[in-house]
Each structure stands twice: as structure tokens, then as C-alpha cells.
């Protein structure tokens, strides 16, 4: 698992207080991990802080699963 994936999973586990084994790539923040709309905003802000990147609102809206976040941040931090 990539370093980015590890850090993303850690943030999700900590923020949502869910079991690590639930935080799979295809886990949907709202449907599978019990996040509400404010949680998703807070997660995006936590990702921005952790990775020092800015996630625009339209990109944030397309991040609905753990895998989406990892793919976005992999790209954002590679460039």
C-alpha cells in the first residue's frame, strides 16, 4: 500500500471512528462509513491539511469513496 493510501486511511479511521477493516478502497464515506455531509467536508479539509494541497469544491464533490480520495491525492501530490 502506498504511503498516500496509508495516510488517507489513517485520517478516515480517526475522523469517523470506524474499524480499520471497513476502510477499503471502495468504501463509500456516507453509505458505508456512516459519514454525514459535514464529515465529508471535514475529511476534505483534513486531507488538505495533511497533504498541503487545495481540493477545489468540484473535485471534493467527486470524492465519495476512500479510493477516490487516494487516487486524487496520489495525483495531486505527484505533480
Amino acid at each position: 500500500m502506498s504511503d498516500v493510501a496509508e495516510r488517507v486511511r489513517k485520517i478516515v479511521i480517526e475522523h469517523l471512528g470506524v474499524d480499520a477493516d471497513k476502510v477499503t478502497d471502495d468504501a463509500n464515506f456516507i453509505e458505508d462509513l456512516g459519514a454525514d455531509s459535514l464529515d465529508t467536508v471535514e475529511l476534505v479539509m483534513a486531507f488538505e491539511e495533511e497533504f498541503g494541497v487545495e481540493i477545489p469544491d468540484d473535485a471534493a464533490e467527486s470524492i465519495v469513496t476512500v479510493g477516490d480520495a487516494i487516487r486524487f491525492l496520489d495525483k495531486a501530490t505527484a505533480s
Partner: protein
Amino acid sequence: MFDLSGKTALVTGASGDIGGAIAKALHGRGVSVAISGTRKAALTSLAETLRDRVHILPCDLANVAAVESLVPEAEAALGTLDILVNNAGLTRDNLSLRMKDEEWDLVLAVNLSAAFRLARAALKGMARRRFGRIIGITSVVGVIGNPGQSNYAASKAGMIGMTKSLAAEVATRGITVNCVAPGLIESAMTQRLDEKQRAWLLAKVAMGRFGTSEEVAAAVIYLASAEASYVTGQTLHVNGGMAMI
């Protein structure tokens, strides 16, 4: 009841009468306070009265960059920020036909836009800690209007609408967002009203007297307290019966 020991608060406009009274009342209940304002001498003298658990953070709320850095500065000074009191406000009265854009813009910037930016910044930490109190000092004229104050009344009405929206957004995070709406309070701001305005306003007050800054501060203490944990999105009117709404 109403014990706030160990809590932290940022009070804007603390160099004014109502802001100073709010800072003193919070401090008296055990709160560590960061006091902000434009008049450094008044802040220093307030800090000397309070002695301990007090930090001076001068800030001109008309300056967006200064506004953006105020909450981080308060969090650095206090450790966390539990209570934000958006008290700062100014007036630039004029009949609307004569009102200049600058008068309108300045009042909205300081009274409303700065309050929003501070709330937005404070909510980050509050949401993380699952506790927070945001209290806006609005005004009775935000609800009933006042000739010569279209800018001020708009900013205060805006604060009430903003408060309700913020309250709904963060209600599940242990954060409450409320307003206190003073009526006619003896302060430097009401001393600037001309005699005609004072008489017109006082005639509307059922109690027939001006209120005190301490009477406003008491409402802030209530809303900041654990006892008010189920109260959110509300406006608590402190106006001696001037407007029963």
C-alpha cells in the same frame, strides 16, 4: 449553574462598553479570555483589571487579512477556542438617500463579514473537539429597523440569518450558535445617537430606562453555559420590553 471554569473565549470589540462587560463576565465565571479591539489603551486597561487568564489581541476587523489571522492567534494564545463572541460593531448613520457606498460597505464588512470569517475559522477546531459556542451580538434594530441605520440594521439582521444557518450546519457537533440582541443600552454607541433618536427610542422601552452592558453580558453567559446546550439558532432579546418578539 453557569460555571465556565477552564473554558476559553475570544471577544471582539472588547475595547467597547458591551464587549468589555462580556469579557469581564466570562472571566468572572472562570474563562480564559482573548480580548480584541482597535483601541489598544482600552484593551490594556481591561487586561489590567482582569489580571490573569487574559490575552490582548488588537485587530482591525475592516482589514480582511487581520480578521483571517485573529482566530489562529487566539487559539495559539489560549490553547483552544471554546467560545467566540462576535461583539464588534460600528455605526455610520445616515439617511439612506444620503448614505455613501463607503458607509454601507464599512458597516457590513466589520459587523457582518468579519463575524462570518471569524465563525468559519473558529468552527474548524470546535467541530474537531465536538464543542463550541458562537454568540453574535446583534441588535433590536436588526429586527425592527431604525431610520438612519439602514446599513447597521442590515448588518444586524444579516447576523441573525447567518446565525440560524450556521446553527443548522453544526448542530450535530455539540456547537451552538446564537445571538443576543440588545435594545437601548447605555454605551458610547448610544451616546452618539442624537437627542431626537434617543427620545424616539426610549419612548418605546416598556421599562422606561436604558439597559446596562452587564445585563447584556448576563445573556451571553447563559448562552455560553452548559445549561444552554439545547438552545441554538436563537436570538435572545435584552431590551427592557422595547420589542417583544
